[in-house]
């Protein structure tokens, strides 16, 4: 556990440093960003440089960045006249809502379809796997566009955008959740089908178990093992997909902040987002690692 924590911290440090370096290497300099498309005179530049301490050597700036990080200070946005921590704090909510809704939707859909079709007739499986294939193959933004065009513009069932109310969450969560349902569905069904062909499954049947009981008591846990190994992919897809989904649906959230910060090269915000996603990743992979041990006691017993 201590080791994991150490590794997690190392990963965080590396992520922070890597993104710091990356943005340092980018063309143009910070003053340009702070000037924006407003008036630009040497005098204005000099004042900005002094204000942000950009005249210090890069190493000093980096160290002071790390130092501030250690104190939980994420710095100030270059573009939005505010502290980064405050910006993120206001944006976490909608993104959490979106990603949780999408994850829940994806997991539920995948689970239902997998359990309903595993080991069933050719047709049911064919249709399910074709649906999964398409869900996996359509870019999330295309799903979003289609959902918007059909359910919002044409049928008017769901609001076009925004973050208020559960109705506004339906379409974005679908757009983000469907690809997840596709991949997860494939993996779960594959796992279930493999599990019910194992010798232990034959033994269980030989005890007089029904197929449903076999799936519920034995196969599901086995199918969860490969599904859990998808955790990293899963988190990445959710966080990355949130960028596109939020932009497309005009939802507030971290994804959109990240996108705007990247295009505007708002260094402090970008780095904070990078750090945050690293924290999320490390946390989730640790949690799932623990879950993995619960599901599969063979590991590290």
């Amino acid at each position, binding site marked *: 556990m201590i080791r994991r924590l150490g590794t997690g911290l190392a990963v965080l440090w590396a992520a922070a440093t890597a993104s710091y370096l990356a943005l340092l290497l980018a063309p143009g300099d910070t003053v340009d960003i702070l000037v924006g498309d407003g008036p630009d005179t040497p005098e204005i530049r000099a004042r900005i440089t002094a204000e942000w301490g950009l005249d210090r050597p890069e190493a000093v700036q980096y160290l002071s960045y790390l130092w501030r990080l250690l104190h939980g200070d994420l710095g100030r946005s270059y573009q939005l006249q505010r502290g980064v921590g405050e910006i993120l704090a206001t944006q976490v909510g909608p993104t959490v809502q979106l990603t949780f809704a999408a994850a829940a939707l994806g997991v539920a859909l995948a689970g239902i379809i997998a359990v309903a079709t595993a080991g069933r007739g050719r047709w049911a499986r064919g249709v399910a796997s074709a649906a999964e294939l398409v869900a996996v193959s359509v870019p999330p933004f295309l799903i979003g566009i289609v959902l918007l065009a059909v359910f919002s513009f044409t049928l008017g069932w769901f609001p076009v955008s925004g973050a208020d109310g559960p109705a506004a969450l339906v379409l974005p969560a679908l757009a983000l959740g469907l690809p997840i349902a596709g991949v997860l569905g494939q993996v779960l069904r594959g796992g279930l089908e493999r599990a019910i062909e194992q010798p232990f499954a034959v033994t269980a049947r030989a005890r007089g178990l029904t197929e449903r009981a076999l799936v519920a008591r034995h196969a599901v846990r086995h199918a969860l093992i490969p599904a859990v190994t998808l955790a990293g992919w899963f988190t990445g897809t959710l966080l990355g997909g949130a960028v596109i989904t939020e932009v497309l649906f005009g939802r507030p959230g971290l994804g959109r902040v990240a996108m705007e910060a990247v295009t505007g090269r708002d260094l402090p915000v970008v780095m904070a987002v*990078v750090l945050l*996603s690293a924290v999320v*990743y490390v946390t989730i992979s640790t949690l799932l690692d623990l879950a993995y041990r619960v599901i599969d006691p063979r590991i590290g017993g």
Partner: protein
Amino acid sequence: MHPSAQAGPLRRFAPASLPRLLTPAVLFGLVAPAAFLVLLALAVVAPGLLTGVDPLAADPLNALAPPGGSHWFGADHLGRDVLSRVVHGARHSISIGVAATGLAVTGGVLLGLAAGLSPKWLDETLARAFDVLSTLPELLLALLVVAVTGPGTGNVILAIALAQIPNYARVIRAQTFVVRRSGFVEQARTFGRSGLAITAGHVLPNVLGPIPVLATIGLGTAVIASSGLSFLGMGPQPPAAEWGAMLSEARGYLRVAWWQALFPGIAITLTVVCLTVAGRRLQRRFEGRTP
């Protein structure tokens, strides 16, 4: 020889069994994807054969013309032919995908092999480096790369490749561990072969086994990723026809010109579906060959 092996070819050429060959599974699992991929390859290599229209020729007076006689897939907001742009777009989208996948595979194989063969500390360091690289969601990493290097085709390739390297590196590393400890590598040592000879002769070829499958499926992923980046305006710059960028442009016209979004959308989806189907076929063949 097994008796059925002799009966096989005869049966295959018997005309009576032809209808049996074209089952839905074969049709959707093999014939249709193969046909589409051939068409796609043609669009990439020689788009001129599929359409004679210049994808960049703007005709503002004909902007947003619906699908019909002169524009089969309709015209976009600048009056450009959507069909021609979809066809020519294949080159951009696919070559980004291929280049990114190629780069990612090369990098992934080299790093994964290096990690798998290194002493423990170096291996651990590399493995942690893969971890760091994958702590960032693929798209966010790509955004970061694009933020550093600016939008454009080359940078999108680099971004996607960088994001996918850990996937390949991990597989290769794990595979290297397995192969390195396998019986035949040990056996080769008893024949007095040197470490280098064993790596080149046994480890590398066996490690590369899953690569064609991974790369085919990875190509699909790369196409999706690149279209996502183009959609966000990070990819090839206008007026280049690229599927993701076309979709991004079409976004503003959803209510007035559905065709502008529909056709590039279908193109991306079909491409990825067919690549995935092909990848899975390869995988089944590959798995059929090993124990």
